[in-house]
């Protein structure tokens, strides 16, 4: 079994990065960014997710299949969100209640 074993240093750096990002996302929430505050919050969350997935969950060293599974899962989540929103965002477009 040729597992790739990361160094303690790597893991520590990832932890630090995660903590810093937590602090950033908390602080930036108090800044008025208008519409972008959601975008920034989510972008930071995605970065943190990537750090955890790539390093802590070893996706970095995983097989193509594992990566495909991860991407597939996220894609399906996107399908659920996008197609549901396709209803909620287009309500009222033709100006007839309930249509």
């Amino acid at each position, binding site marked *: 079994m040729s597992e790739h074993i990361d160094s303690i240093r790597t893991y520590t750096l990832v932890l630090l990065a995660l903590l810093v990002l937590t602090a950033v996302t908390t602080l930036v929430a108090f800044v008025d960014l208008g519409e972008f505050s959601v975008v920034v919050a989510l972008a930071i969350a995605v970065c943190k997710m990537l750090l955890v997935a790539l390093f802590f969950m070893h996706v970095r060293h995983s097989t193509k*299949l594992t990566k495909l599974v991860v991407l597939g899962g996220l894609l399906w989540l996107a399908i*659920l969100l996008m197609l549901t929103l396709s209803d909620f965002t*287009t309500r009222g477009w033709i100006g007839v209640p309930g249509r």
Partner: protein
Amino acid sequence: MNTAAIHEREDYLNVSHGLKSWLLTKDHKRIGLLYLATITLFFFLGGLFATVIRIELLTPGGGLVSSETYNKLFTMHGVTMIFFFLIPSIPAVLGNFFLPMMIGARDLAFPRINLISWYLLVIGGLFALFAMLAGGVDTGWTFYTPYSTTYSNTWVIATALGIFVAGFSSILTGLNFIVTIHTMRAPGLTWFRMPLFVWAHYATSLIQVLGTPVLAVTIVLVLCERVFHIGIFDPALGGDPVLFQHLFWFYSHPAVYIMILPAMGVVSELVSTFSRKAIFGYRVVAFSSVAIAVLGFLVWGHHMFVSGQSVFAGMAFSFLSYFVAIPSAIKVFNWTATLYKGSISWETPMLYAFGFIGLFTIGGLTGLFVAALGIDVHVTDTYFVVAHFHYIMVGGAIMAYLGGLHYWWPKMTGRMYPEGWAKLSALVIFLGFNLTFFPQFILGYLGMPRRYHTYPEEFQVLHVLSTAGASVLAVGYAIPMIYFAWSLKYGAMAGTNPWGASGLEWKTPSPPPLHNFDTTPVVTHDAYDYSTVVGEAVEIG
């Protein structure tokens, strides 16, 4: 098992004895049989509900049972048939039994999880049974809010919990299949040498794994609302009942493909074996299964054209729905083309396959009707839809399930069933089915709404026809029960390969040994290569 001949050899049935050896088994074959017994019970329970429904509908005024009872009957018919019979039917019985054998494995990747899956189905089933015995549930199998959360006074919670638990059974089965197919194929068994049954189950498993959790969480939210009064879908708080429908159909539309894809897999095996020919366009058929699984996730909104969903979402969902029609059509064309210049044998499983193709064609084509926005507005929530999905689920999935059961029965039990009776019952089922459900298309277009206890008199003639068909259908379903049971003791001994089939499961004795194969097979040919099966072959065509 009354002859000495079979006792000389150790197989999965006689390797150990006693109730405990079954209830704690990790053998995928025994678990398959446990499922078979379980879902057969649920099938007859669901059938019983259907029988009362059909008798009730003989008269327009509704004299046999009260409205409350009638509403519970159709709800419990749906819940039982969908969650406790159709969803587990082919995957959990035939898939469990034969998927590992078809890929030359000794078992599934996670035998213990496989057993847990069965227990989850049983536990879920007991919840649902409890609800039914305690007083029943009347929300319709769709559990639409706010009726299910606020207005129904029936056993919604127990039933929903049952479905929740059974959902995890389905998830774990799918997970097990995917991992097994990825990691446990016999040497030489490349993806494009796999039988189409395996491809179909792979696609099915994707849906089980990706869709079922959304149903689970939706049920959790409904339960939260009903039990703790924290309203996620409650209009009084500004919640949107249509959101529930989105989440529900995100699973429940693909769930139709959980039922029909394995059926298509079975039919591919049957058509190939009984015409002794490789499936025409093997790769196209294999990919079409995956395409159906993927595209099936993009179309759920077509259940909601009149729900208050936006016009544009409705159009998008209608558009996407037509894409899923194409891979289904391709399969039908390819099966038909496979028959061309084949060597076609008219044994019972093949009759079921013919029945499947015919009924699925009608069910599929009427699917085009209900996907057309203009028509769906008129026919949604009418008997047209009822007829359409019964053509898919009963005419499709159950025909294939019975076909598969007949086909693999000799392998599972080591015994043949009586061919004459089997042919007769196949014919009776086909005729009874059409008589039951064809009139419902007409009823639906005339405007007869579904889930109606009473109805205007002008619909009575068609309802009577339908009930007449249902009684024929009931007889058709009873016959196999009897002769299958009979065959366990009196059936002729089945050889290793009674049909001259090509799959790996036919290269090991009937019934198979505990670990399926004495030595792991090595695959050197494509699927459906009959040149090695037929001795002294006479080439035709």
